[in-house]
């Protein structure tokens, strides 16, 4: 007997209740607090802030808890919350040369003013499971850390710039477009590309960057400088008529130095790629810089090798994981109607084929 599918509403409510139960897991195990997630899973928090485009570690930690650790789901929660927030204005551009660097390294110079600062990095750890962590409950001993320099730390690329060895970035006074307030228009510009990549999926941007290293639009990047630290955020208040500091945020900035052959009009010089991301997200920042550089082929008079990473429309249309996962997963929704129309079409075409070629059909 056929019963029209009723009770979708009850099924949904029950599914949500079950989900909540699964999220909590075994209740004899202590519940995670937002503070624990914020402090102990801080790189996950950073990724959620970066791709969620909202700098708020507590909300990001809450989203991670609510999403059972599914970071794309957490990013989605943050994005959906972010759209409801009123816009008071925009900050002044942050001055990353004034960053209080926790980490600052250059792969192109052995030393430079401000020095090489390793900071809290996985780079030289041996990836051996630390079973002490499974047992240890004692608080970790304080590490010996240096205080970040108080004075500004110059960008290493600027030392190349004084010699004219690297292409100068031309300052632009235009207000950058806001991807979240205006529809994306293609072809876009570098500000919009960097904005899009900064909130793009880490895995996607990493894959695109990796493809350039393997020869699909190879541009041979060196990490000119990678820095991580806190920068003050200033905003001009209309009533005051000048900018005041409204807070600070931790950023990761990467500048790459890339080869450039020079052209008829330009002497040979190096070029740059750039990535700036919320939080400590250095894999992402380096990836953004490589993809940024690959996307600049037209501006730098290079040839289009047809590589995916050079294709602005391809990269920008597919780097957003919230768009991608939504559309991918929507194929779980009912498609009875469309499938029915396909069924009828295939049956009709097969019927007609059988009438047209009856012998072949018999031979089979």
């Amino acid at each position, binding site marked *: 007997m056929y019963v029209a599918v009723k009770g979708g509403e009850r099924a949904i409510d029950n599914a949500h209740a079950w989900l909540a139960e699964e999220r909590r897991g075994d209740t004899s195990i202590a519940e995670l607090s937002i503070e624990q997630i914020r402090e102990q899973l801080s790189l996950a928090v950073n990724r959620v802030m970066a791709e969620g485009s909202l700098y708020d570690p507590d909300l990001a930690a809450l989203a991670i808890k609510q999403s059972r650790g599914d970071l794309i789901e957490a990013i989605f929660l943050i994005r959906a919350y972010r759209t409801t927030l009123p816009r008071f204005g925009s900050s002044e551009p942050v001055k990353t040369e004034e960053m209080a660097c926790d980490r600052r390294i250059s792969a192109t110079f052995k030393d430079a003013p401000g020095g090489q600062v390793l900071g809290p990095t996985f780079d030289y750890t041996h990836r051996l499971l630390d079973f002490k962590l499974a047992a240890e409950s004692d608080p970790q001993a304080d590490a010996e850390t240096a205080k970040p320099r108080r004075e500004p730390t110059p960008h290493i690329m600027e030392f190349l710039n004084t010699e004219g060895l690297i292409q100068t970035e031309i300052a632009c006074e235009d207000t950058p477009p806001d991807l979240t307030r205006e529809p994306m228009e293609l072809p876009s510009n570098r500000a919009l590309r960097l904005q899009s990549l900064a909130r793009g999926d880490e895995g996607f941007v990493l894959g695109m960057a990796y493809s350039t290293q393997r020869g699909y639009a190879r541009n041979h990047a060196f990490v000119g400088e990678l820095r991580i630290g806190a920068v003050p955020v200033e905003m001009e208040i209309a009533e005051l008529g000048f900018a005041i500091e409204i807070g600070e945020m931790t950023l990761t900035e990467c500048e790459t130095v890339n080869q450039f052959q020079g052209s008829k009009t330009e002497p040979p010089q190096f070029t740059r790629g750039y990535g700036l991301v919320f939080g400590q997200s250095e894999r992402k920042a380096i990836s953004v810089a490589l993809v940024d550089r690959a996307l600049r082929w037209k501006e730098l008079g290079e040839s289009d090798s047809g590589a995916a990473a050079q294709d602005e429309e391809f990269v920008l249309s597919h780097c957003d994981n919230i768009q991608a996962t939504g559309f991918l997963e929507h194929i779980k929704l009912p498609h009875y109607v469309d499938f029915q*129309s396909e069924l009828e079409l295939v049956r009709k075409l097969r019927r007609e084929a059988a009438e047209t070629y009856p012998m072949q059909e018999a031979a089979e």
Partner: protein
Amino acid sequence: MTDYNFAYLDEQTKRMIRRAILKGLAIPGYQVPFASREMPMPYGWGTGGVQVSAATLTPDDTLKVIDQGADDTTNAVSIRKFFEVTAGVTTTENTTEASVIQTRHRIPEAELRDDQILVYQVPIPEPLRFLEPRETETRKMHALEEYGLMHVKLYEDISQHGAIATSYAYPVKVEGRYVMDPSPIPKFDNPKLEMSAIQLFGAGREQRIYALPPYTKVESLDFEDYPFEATKADHACDMCGAENSYLDEVIMDDQGSRMFVCSDTDFCAGRQQAGHLGALAAVNAEDAA
């Protein structure tokens, strides 16, 4: 819920969407870019339709939400609930009672009136997308009315299969100008696109809105010798006996026996209440008793 504005979106956003809707109505079939917002449901699950509905609804409206023609499919339930909570509007399953109908993949069987608005959820608004993946190219093709590629595709279908092998999201030409994707409705519904109600199409992820004002001329693309044909399963509804409604095929048992029922649940229930019974309705009634 008092934390959110009426129908969730803030008034500024609604104004932006209304402007896009008005532009869409002024240029029927033209895809208007709009700054689609991140909604609390996933992209691909009707965020475009939800934003258009949110910008369209007033507190006096009565809303109906269908998916696959049915009011009780999970996503229709979810979207209806969203507006019940955020807008507090009256909702209905009755097509004639609704002033705004949000739909996915179907046009209701009952003829709509000029005081009704039909809002479509659109996954890929660009009818040329599967022929040309680049937006920069397809926008140019629309601007130049360069639709040769589409006709070649339809022609190739005929030469390969003997028929146009598109059964849903069948492309249409609006007022002799723009080729438009009617969203993935079955081509059975295409003739209904010429109607008295306002039709609004929202594609959230792709950031596009387009529209058909009432009584707009909408032609399904075809050839003189291969005219467009609105098709459906060659059956009557086994529940209400309707012979002119779009049918879902339901697998009944392990042997794969089938029955056919109206995809428009309100239409089917209405007919059954009026005493129309299909071939299997009597069996069902006995089972139920």
